């Protein structure tokens, strides 16, 4: 059976590579590959800079090494603790639909299925570790292989442990109260360990805060993590973190035995689990297959529509209505919670850059980068438009509606949503940011002046966002194979090259789109300033946005014709 699994893994890998090679016959993939290879060459392998870069990286790595041991151990502890305390709603081990179809119905034991998943996961881990090693780029081959091998073994332990935790939790669900008692012990241990670590840190917190610099802080944390109760708790995690960070081959071999013991222990634990995962895995595979290629809001509830759709009126509004419904039903508390780390990071950064101000200054300082970020990234992130609907191309093309109207309707929802979001950030930043504006000058700090700047920025943001959304949707029509269908993405160096090319193309097109309006606005601003000494803000912004809107209309008309001619077979299935 092991041979069959190896055969399946090897054939799948071989055929995936073959498919990627075969698609290079298409110029777009070939160009994409060339760009991807060039990217790797110039940023990772370029011989002229190799020694210098490696030296710089190694210096950085050496400087960071001590903190990395501590950080690595704490992160690994966090992963394990999180897995125990917050088990996911999914199945312990994920299988694809064909795997369920072929392997679950075959005379294969549970243990063999587990072995298959372990074999299968090794390939991905090896590729990931190779990529990370390339990016970190240790200076010597020796440092390279110890880092890669160490990281691979760490990944293996993490994978085995997560599998074991998931199977244990599954067993708990299957066996009821007796298992609860049985499983309660490790959960109590994890809780106790977390509490002790927190207690150690909190007890020493005044000492940590009194330390003069970051390196002293890490040195103290290093000491804390190797002594007392924290040292005992973190020992296995430190043992893991030490392996890829070993400074020499000798240190690597010395660090290897505890990691091998951890691998064996976790492996035995996984194999001894009596949890039955097949049924849940089969159900999950069906669900995943259904969800592939579209934003299926798991557990989506029927909520009120954004507005009542009248039976008559422009088709664009009907498509806007449809896409706003998607947004309303897709955006859940869970999605919003994912933004919390970003907000926290921005808050810390804002606090750091604005120590003098109070909470309002911090909020204002946060809003400005958020507005900039969403203006630039929002259209890429909000895909409730044609990019999402490419999977429904056959349905869209059966509608008695012109391609131009479909594209206009599709771009409206993300453009409006992102514009409103950015507008809110700008408004909040303006209202709370009197101190920030004060630094520019007293005249800029008055509410009227601030609102004027905010209006100008908000209006310009609309142009920026609309143009990007139209460009992204135009790419979906003109180069459908370059645009991911639904939520899936093509993989491979050629696909990465395509994305780089696309990003460059988007930025270039954006500049070209903004130039005519900007030129007209510049003439207006300079003329008025020359004549009256007044600097106009809102009117030039309106001019730029007006020109961009006209351009977008023209582009949707042209791209709409291409949409009408597009064949559904041009939409390539994504790997």
């Amino acid at each position, binding site marked *: 059976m092991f041979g069959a699994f190896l055969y399946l893994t090897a054939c799948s890998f071989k055929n995936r590579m073959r498919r990627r090679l075969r698609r290079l016959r298409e110029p777009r993939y070939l160009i994409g590959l060339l760009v991807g290879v060039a990217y790797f060459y110039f940023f990772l392998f370029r011989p002229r800079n190799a020694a210098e870069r490696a030296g710089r990286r190694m210096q950085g790595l050496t400087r960071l090494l001590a903190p990395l041991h501590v950080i690595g151990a704490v992160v690994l502890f966090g992963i394990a603790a999180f897995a125990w305390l917050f088990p996911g709603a999914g199945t312990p081990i994920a299988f694809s639909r064909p795997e369920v179809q072929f392997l679950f119905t075959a005379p294969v034991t549970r243990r063999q299925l587990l072995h298959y998943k372990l074999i299968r996961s090794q390939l991905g881990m090896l590729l990931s570790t190779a990529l990370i090693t390339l990016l970190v780029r240790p200076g010597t081959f020796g440092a390279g292989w110890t880092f890669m091998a160490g990281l691979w073994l760490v990944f293996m332990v993490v994978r085995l442990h997560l599998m074991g935790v998931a199977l244990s939790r599954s067993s708990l669900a299957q066996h009821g109260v007796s298992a609860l008692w049985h499983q309660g012990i490790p959960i109590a241990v994890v809780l106790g360990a977390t509490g002790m670590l927190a207690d150690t840190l909190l007890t020493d917190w005044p000492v940590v805060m009194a330390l003069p610099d970051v390196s002293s802080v890490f040195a103290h944390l290093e000491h804390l993590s190797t002594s007392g109760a924290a040292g005992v708790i973190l020992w296995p995690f430190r043992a893991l973190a030490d392996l890829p960070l070993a400074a020499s081959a000798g240190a690597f071999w010395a660090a290897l035995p505890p990691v091998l013991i951890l691998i064996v222990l976790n492996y035995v634990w996984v194999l001894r689990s009596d949890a039955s995962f097949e049924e849940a895995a089969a159900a999950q595979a069906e669900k995943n297959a259904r969800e592939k290629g579209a934003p299926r809001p798991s557990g*989506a509830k029927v909520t009120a*529509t954004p507005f009542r*759709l009248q*039976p008559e009126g422009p*088709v664009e509004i009907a498509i806007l209505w449809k896409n706003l419904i998607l947004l309303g039903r897709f955006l859940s508390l869970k999605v919003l919670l994912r933004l919390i780390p970003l907000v926290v990071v921005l808050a810390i950064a804002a606090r750091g850059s604005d120590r003098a101000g109070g909470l309002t200054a911090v909020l204002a300082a946060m809003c400005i980068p958020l507005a900039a970020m969403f203006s630039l990234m929002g259209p890429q992130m909000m895909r409730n438009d044609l990019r999402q609907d490419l999977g429904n191309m056959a349905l869209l093309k059966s509608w*008695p509606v012109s391609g131009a109207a479909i594209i206009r309707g599709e771009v409206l929802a993300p453009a409006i949503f992102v514009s409103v979001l950015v507008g809110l950030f700008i408004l909040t930043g303006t209202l709370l940011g009197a101190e920030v504006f004060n630094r520019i000058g007293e005249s800029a700090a008055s509410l009227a002046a601030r609102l004027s700047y905010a209006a100008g920025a908000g209006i310009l943001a609309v142009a920026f966002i609309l143009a990007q959304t139209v460009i992204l949707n135009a790419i979906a029509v003109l180069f459908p194979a370059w645009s991911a269908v639904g939520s899936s993405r093509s993989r491979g160096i050629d696909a990465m090259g395509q994305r780089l090319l696309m990003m460059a193309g988007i930025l270039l097109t954006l500049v070209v789109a903004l130039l005519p309006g900007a030129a007209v606005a510049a003439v207006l601003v300079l003329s008025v300033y020359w004549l009256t000494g007044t600097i106009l803000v809102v009117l030039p912004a309106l001019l730029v946005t007006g020109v961009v809107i006209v351009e977008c209309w023209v582009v949707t008309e042209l791209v709409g014709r291409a949409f009408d001619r597009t064949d559904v077979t041009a939409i390539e299935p994504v790997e």
Partner: protein
Amino acid sequence: MIDVQNLTKVYGSFRAVDDFSFRVSPGEVVGLIGPNGAGKTTTLRCLVGIQAPTSGTVTIGGRNIVTDAIAAKQQLAFMADEPQLFDYLTVMEHLRLTGRLYKVTDVDARAKPLLEELELTEKAQALPSELSRGMKQKVAIACGLLHEPQAMLFDEPLTGLDPLGIRRMKETIVARGRAGAAVIVSSHLLHLVEEICTRVIIIDRGRKIADGTLAELKARPELAAAGSSLEAIFLTATAREQ
């Protein structure tokens, strides 16, 4: 109503549909049958404008599906074998969206009897994820029928339906034909085609190999020996080709 002249669709060097011509008049229910890969779905997709023909013309109610696509599609409904629904719209919202797209001003008035006919009334506020495969098929068909199209294309319409659903679906298709619509039903279920279709077109390897009523097909000398059932005729006709 549906007029197909010399339709050809080529993918690279492969001719999926080859010089295919036929007409479907108002009130006719035509069965389009053929082996796997014969070109049935490609033909239907070219008819509905989802795919562009390599050559040939398709007109719906006198409107060319390529050059006058919007007017042609306005008279058309295509019920695909795999129902494509927006996962985040309820059944009723699907109907409202379809109504707006096809300029149906009295959606509510039309939706009620349609939902009743297709036994979807209780599911009007359900999302597709709450529906079975058969129910999704019914929703797609309800959307297709909402604007009372004059030309209808059904691709494997009975897939996923329960026995009662199958009976209702057959009644629905026949009723639309009797009401004057031109209907094409593509299916591998030959007994269904034999039961509800007034005419049969057999396609194989992209080419039309037979066209006529069951009686006309039986009367053809090369098929006369096949027997009286459509299944026997189909097997004989496609075997001759192979």
